[in-house]
């Protein structure tokens, strides 16, 4: 296996120092008192592992910079984003027509199309296909939808082994952990963490942390499993209505192996993956890998329109909350998402808290928007894990107004009384103060005058969550109002 120094696929463009292998990997969140994921607590533990935290932050920012380099290389980049957003807008408004067209085309190609209202129905359908095929194991490529559906656990209960074939996803499966990122499932792990997982599960040398050695060990261990599996599964990046094509993008080639080696190929796809025409792929394929990883295209962009000779192919079209979101005007546009992860790579909160700390299938900005509609109680705190800086919206290839939607979720959750008593009291006090401009100005100038003289224990005590982990900025000498009253707005 060859290690190289160029930067396609998800590779970094400059070396980032990792750790010395002694720091333990931070794990996922606890469930707090109110039944909600405690993202802040998990985020604190992530930051308390400085080697992991520093690597994670720099690795994702490196990918964000590579994405920017690709963007600057294409004059029509902003026009492509607008086109992608407009195509998806049309699809959302006419989804039933395009799904029916896809079904017709796929059926004509010899594909069996199934429909599932929710995760349980998806798992039942796929389980039945696997059992009818006599499959005791299924090899699959990465699919966020099957993560949503808790698919591996459901098959476990039926005695069917699910084998992830993507390296990062396999690392996470062997470690009993969820993926922490939509395209880089193990991005929160250092090589020493992977070495420990593989030593335990694949019998590799625990002292050999070389990524080339570890990746080769996984390739060698997975090959026989791919060759003997009676069924394979993939997700779908796009479903083309006019041709019935299922498009899957990977760098490893594992979707082609999963779909074309075993006799049965099952595709799990969310209903929003539709694009009307083959020509639309020109727009989306140009945007996807450039936004996700800063590479021009994935190494494999595979188009499946029918079973392999002598085999069968199934497509399961899954709703699982998507039609409910379609009916909510405020959150409908989030269904445009193509799962590139650019919003996660750019998000300062995501980069410094790690994907596991969200305790959800989807983390980062898109997670804050998608997760609460799946479980209001469990994910009630997630929309607050954002500074609303808007960087996510600025990089989104389909122009989802992510920070606007995050703000909207805060209003919904606060309106439903799902925020903590402390936050409610603080917001009430702030509202009272902000409603009275004179009182607000007096408070600001009194606080500004007092700030330089207050002792640290008064400023950085437990009441001030903004003082945790960061220094307050130096206060200006006078407020804007005081300056304007003194000078009449004239600059010196």
């Amino acid at each position, binding site marked *: 296996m060859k290690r190289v120094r160029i930067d*396609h696929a998800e590779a970094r463009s400059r070396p980032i120092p*990792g750790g010395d292998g002694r720091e333990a990997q931070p794990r996922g969140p606890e469930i707090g008192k109110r039944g909600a994921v405690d993202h802040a607590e998990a985020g604190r533990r992530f930051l308390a592992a400085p080697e992991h935290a520093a690597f994670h932050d720099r690795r994702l920012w490196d990918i964000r910079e590579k994405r920017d380099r690709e963007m600057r290389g294409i004059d029509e980049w902003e026009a492509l984003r607008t086109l992608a957003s407009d195509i998806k807008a*049309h699809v959302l408004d006419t989804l039933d027509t395009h799904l029916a067209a896809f079904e017709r085309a796929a059926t004509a190609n010899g594909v069996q199309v199934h*429909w599932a209202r929710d995760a349980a129905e998806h798992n039942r359908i796929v389980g039945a296909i696997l059992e009818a095929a006599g499959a005791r194991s299924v090899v699959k490529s990465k699919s966020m939808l099957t993560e949503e559906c808790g698919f591996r656990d459901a098959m476990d209960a039926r005695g069917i082994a699910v084998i992830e074939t993507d390296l990062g996803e396999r690392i996470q499966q062997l470690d009993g952990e969820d993926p922490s990122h939509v395209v880089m499932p193990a991005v929160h792990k250092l090589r020493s963490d992977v070495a420990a997982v593989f030593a335990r599960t694949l019998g590799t040398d625990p002292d050999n942390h070389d*990524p080339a050695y570890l990746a080769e060990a996984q390739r060698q261990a997975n090959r026989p499993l791919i060759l003997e599996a009676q069924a394979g599964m993939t997700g779908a990046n796009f479903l083309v209505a006019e041709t019935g094509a299922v498009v899957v993008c990977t760098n490893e*080639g594992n979707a*082609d192996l999963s779909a074309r080696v075993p006799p049965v190929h099952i595709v799990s796809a969310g*209903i929003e993956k539709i694009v009307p025409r*083959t020509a639309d792929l020109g727009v989306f394929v140009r945007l996807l890998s450039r936004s996700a990883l800063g590479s021009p295209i994935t190494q494999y962009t595979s188009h499946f329109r029918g079973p392999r000779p002598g085999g069968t192919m199934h497509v399961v079209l899954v709703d699982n909350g998507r039609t409910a979101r379609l009916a909510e005007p405020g959150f409908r546009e989030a269904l445009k998402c193509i799962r590139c992860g650019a919003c996660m790579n750019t998000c300062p909160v995501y980069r410094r808290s790690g994907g596991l700390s969200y305790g959800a299938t989807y983390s980062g900005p898109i997670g804050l928007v998608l997760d609460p509609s799946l479980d209001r109680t469990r994910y009630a705190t997630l929309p607050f894990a954002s500074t609303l800086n808007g960087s996510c919206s600025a990089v989104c290839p389909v122009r989802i107004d992510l920070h606007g939607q995050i703000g909207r979720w805060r209003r919904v959750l606060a309106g439903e009384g799902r925020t903590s008593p402390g936050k409610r009291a603080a917001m009430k006090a702030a509202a009272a103060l902000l409603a009275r401009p004179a009182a607000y100005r007096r408070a600001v100038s009194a606080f500004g005058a007092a700030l330089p003289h207050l002792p640290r224990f008064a400023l950085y005590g437990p009441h001030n969550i903004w003082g945790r982990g960061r220094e307050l900025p130096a206060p200006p000498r006078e407020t804007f109002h005081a300056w304007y009253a003194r000078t009449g707005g004239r600059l010196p």
Partner: protein
Amino acid sequence: MSAREAILAAIAAARPAEARPLPAVPAWTIPLERRVAAFTEALLRMGGRLLAPPASRSPLEAAQAWIAARAAHGPVWSTVPELPATRSPDPAAAPHTLADLEACVARAAFGVAETGSVAFREEDLVVAASATLAQHLLVLLDRSAIVGGLHDCYARPEFARAHYLVLHSGPSATADIEGVLIHGAQGVRSLSILLTDG
């Protein structure tokens, strides 16, 4: 109500009075005279290799030498009629029986200059899995079959006909462990291209 009916009914109920229109997609492209150079540049960036035989040697001779070198390590499957190798391509071969292939040699249906990609359909490979299970891949690509950009690519008729079509851009790769790039994740460890004329 079946799941199909329930889902379609829920979508219909959420349908706005007036649907936003489907925009036309312009065909941004790369001019003909720059295509081969752009293809080569993109291919190298994606981790692919370009075989550049000296003028004294024909492309076929270069391919034969490549095949001979690989054949020392294991069976070579060639679907190019003028380049016989050591394993005759058999459309009835079960995919898992191709796992011992050292190399696969095939002619691409077309190439894409923007991304350095080559396109294969099942018929180009005889058995699709041959190109993924083999350790190394040699691709013959006609210079005249290189289209400009991905928009030109998706205007090709193959997308409406082929049951399998892969755009292969460099070898199989991963950087899932600390961003260290490794060739030969689950698919081929190397991809070499030999440009031909007509």
